[in-house]
């Protein structure tokens, strides 16, 4: 029997309990409303709001400790989003069947878990037993998508939750699930928005770059950021060598130079062979084969083999880069796609589409930059050629001096790019005359400068010492050999390995009619004797071109030699460069020495100037419409 007083006390207690419940519900509803507004307003990042959700849940249900664990489906792990008290923990791995079990369970009491979760709880016993926050788990889910776990510690002052508290817990868990899903969805939308903005922004940015290296670098940077990748590379086709050549890789230290790769000038290259040959396709291609196939097939692909020794990265995806006319210029590679949390993910179909779109813009940008560079190079080359031409023309004498008892004439005809032909006839201070003809290797400014060096060296030699011993015939030969050695040394230190000159020098003593000649790898001049006999001068003693080897190596290969002949009245000497004998006609035939010889035999009754004109006309007639790229130089000497 209960007394009236006791009834009142009990009644007051019940009222107090009901009031407290109402207070807790009001608190909970008010906080939930605030969170709902936060969610709608776009401030939805669960990493930020998780602590508030946990605080409301624990406060409403009067539970002193608990945690919210978020599930990451890409890598199958749980992470602690919020906890009371705060704890530091690493990723908690969870198997797919354990996730399935949690999806089917409305609540999990940790002291009596379902069989399928026992292994998980054992594996993570250190984490779960080390604190008081894991007493009851509420799986967080939206329909069939598992999102995480709301974990509650022991309840304050009671062994279990009241029925209405359990219902409230279900509502709170659902709210938390909505917040996680909303946050992830918002993050996905933000991410896609960002990538689309980047795609739109990157096009004008990379298309403004006019240097191919800058364009390559920016294309790789933008692709890496656009695809959430951690590595990227640009390889372009080098059509001449039929290979893909690395233009830029990010980060540079990723480049792995294994033995199975071919490298040229420290650049990674991959041979591609015939672009139409599809024979390299295999079921499980290596990363190199995959890249070659992307170029050959013209479509984006991913490396399924994961044997990515090429850049040291993993999970590669490559897309072809096309020029305006649809030609494949090369490919763009990205790898190591990352997801939040630091793990590597596979590229998706959307990623492939994004790379395709970006590669189209990249193709235009790269083509623009290369065209700009080519135009600049062409302009620079043209300016250099004009300068070189001026230098060369200044070195060729306008007129030749009169040599008593002799006729002398020269002809220089520039054809095509600037070459390095030279001829001269110099009166020597010590008496006598020096006749020189030379052909410097190469074209353009370098050839013109090398020729200028040769001429300066020759003039220096002739005005200083050479020719002093003109009456001692044997010594004159040595003088010329010494001069050749001096000029050889001068040109060798002036030029590169590829820069040298063929050179023929003649010392003429008009009083004795003795010619002392030196041939340094030049075309032997033609002598047409007064009786019609033909002699090729210096043919037997042709030494090395000057400047090709250092002086100490010259005697070991082919030392310079000089020879002497005596001219008679009517004898004719025709000096020439290979622009004469190597002129080709439209049938690809050479003008050659034989035609020159035949023509020389017909020149007995005409003077040196006319002989030059005759030979020049003959060569030009022979050439016809064929292209010619070498200068033509003639020097003719006749003893009256």
């Amino acid at each position, binding site marked *: 029997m209960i007394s009236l007083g006791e009834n009142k006390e009990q009644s007051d207690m019940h009222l107090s309990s009901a009031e407290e419940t109402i207070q807790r519900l009001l608190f909970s509803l008010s906080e939930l409303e605030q969170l709902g507004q936060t969610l709608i307003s776009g401030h939805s990042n669960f990493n930020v709001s998780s602590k508030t959700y946990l605080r409301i849940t624990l406060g409403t249900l009067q539970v002193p400790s608990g945690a919210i664990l978020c599930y990451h489906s890409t890598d199958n792990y749980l992470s602690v989003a919020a906890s009371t008290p705060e704890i530091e923990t690493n990723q908690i791995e969870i198997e797919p069947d354990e996730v399935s079990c949690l999806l089917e369970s409305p609540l999990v009491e940790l002291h009596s878990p379902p069989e399928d979760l026992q292994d998980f709880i054992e594996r993570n016993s250190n984490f779960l037993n080390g604190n008081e926050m894991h007493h009851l788990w509420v799986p967080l889910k939206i329909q069939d998508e598992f999102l995480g776990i709301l974990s509650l510690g022991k309840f304050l002052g009671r062994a279990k939750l009241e029925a209405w508290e359990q219902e409230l817990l279900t509502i709170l868990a659902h709210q938390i699930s909505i917040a996680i899903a909303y946050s992830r969805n918002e993050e996905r939308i*933000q991410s896609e928005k960002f990538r689309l903005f980047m795609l739109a922004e990157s096009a004008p940015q990379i298309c403004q770059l006019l240097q191919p290296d800058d364009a390559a670098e920016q294309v790789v940077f933008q692709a890496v950021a656009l695809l959430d990748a951690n590595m990227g590379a640009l390889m372009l086709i080098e059509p001449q060598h039929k290979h893909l050549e690395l233009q830029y890789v990010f980060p540079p230290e990723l480049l792995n130079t294994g033995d199975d790769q071919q490298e040229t000038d420290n650049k990674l290259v991959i041979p591609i062979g015939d672009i139409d040959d599809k024979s390299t396709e295999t079921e499980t291609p290596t990363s190199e084969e995959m890249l070659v196939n992307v170029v050959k097939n013209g479509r984006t692909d991913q490396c399924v083999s994961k044997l990515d020794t090429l850049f040291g990265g993993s999970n590669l995806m490559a897309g072809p880069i096309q020029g305006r006319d649809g030609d494949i210029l090369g490919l763009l590679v990205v790898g190591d796609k990352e997801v939040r949390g630091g793990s590597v993910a596979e590229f998706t179909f959307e990623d492939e589409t994004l790379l395709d779109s970006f590669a189209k813009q990249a193709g235009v940008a790269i083509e623009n930059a290369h065209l700009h560079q080519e135009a600049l190079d062409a302009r620079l080359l043209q300016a250099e050629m004009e300068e070189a031409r001026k230098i060369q023309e200044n070195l060729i004498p306008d007129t030749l001096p009169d040599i008593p008892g002799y006729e002398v004439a020269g002809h220089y005809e520039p054809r095509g790019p600037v070459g390095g032909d030279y001829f001269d006839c110099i009166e020597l201070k010590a008496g006598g005359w020096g006749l020189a003809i030379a052909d410097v290797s190469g074209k353009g400014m370098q050839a013109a400068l090398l020729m200028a060096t040769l001429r300066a060296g020759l003039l220096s030699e002739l005005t200083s010492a050479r020719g002093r011993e003109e009456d001692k015939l044997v010594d004159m030969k040595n003088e010329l050999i010494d001069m050749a050695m001096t000029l050889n040394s001068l040109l060798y230190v002036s030029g590169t390995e590829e820069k040298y000159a063929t050179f023929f020098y003649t010392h003429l003593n008009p009083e004795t009619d003795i010619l002392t000649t030196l041939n340094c790898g030049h075309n032997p001049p033609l002598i047409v004797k007064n009786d019609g006999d033909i002699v090729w001068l210096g043919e037997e003693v042709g030494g090395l071109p000057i400047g090709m080897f250092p002086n100490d190596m010259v005697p070991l290969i082919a030392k310079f030699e000089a020879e002497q002949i005596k001219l008679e009245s009517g004898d004719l000497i025709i000096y020439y460069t290979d622009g004469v004998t190597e002129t080709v006609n439209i049938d690809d035939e050479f003008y050659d020495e034989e035609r020159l010889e035949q023509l020389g035999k017909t020149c007995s009754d005409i003077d040196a100037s006319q002989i030059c004109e005759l030979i020049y006309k003959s060569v030009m007639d022979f050439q016809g419409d064929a292209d010619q790229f070498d200068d033509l130089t003639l020097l003719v000497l006749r003893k009256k």
Partner: protein
Amino acid sequence: MANKFDIQIRAEHEYAVLETAGYLNDSLGERLSKEAQELIEKGYTQLVINLDKTALINSIGISILIEIIEALDERDGTLNFCGLSATQERTFRMMAIAKYAGIFPDEKAAIADF
């Protein structure tokens, strides 16, 4: 661009500057987030993020920046950005980040705004 990740922090009396260097991806972003959270926990509600040495930002980096904005917003704090490239600034404006955070040309201007 070298891929050297780094974060320099200059905490003054009323504000703190976080200066990043390198690709703002998950790795650098998580470090930035952790440093920012620690500053917020210490009571800093006025932060500057200087991106002058960060030429590249991916979508994960952006989401982390948004997270920092929201974390500061919860404490009625302010985040100002500076050192953005023209492209980054346009992207930030298009992403509406500029609605919730200030964008300034340099650190001095970003700090002066507080």
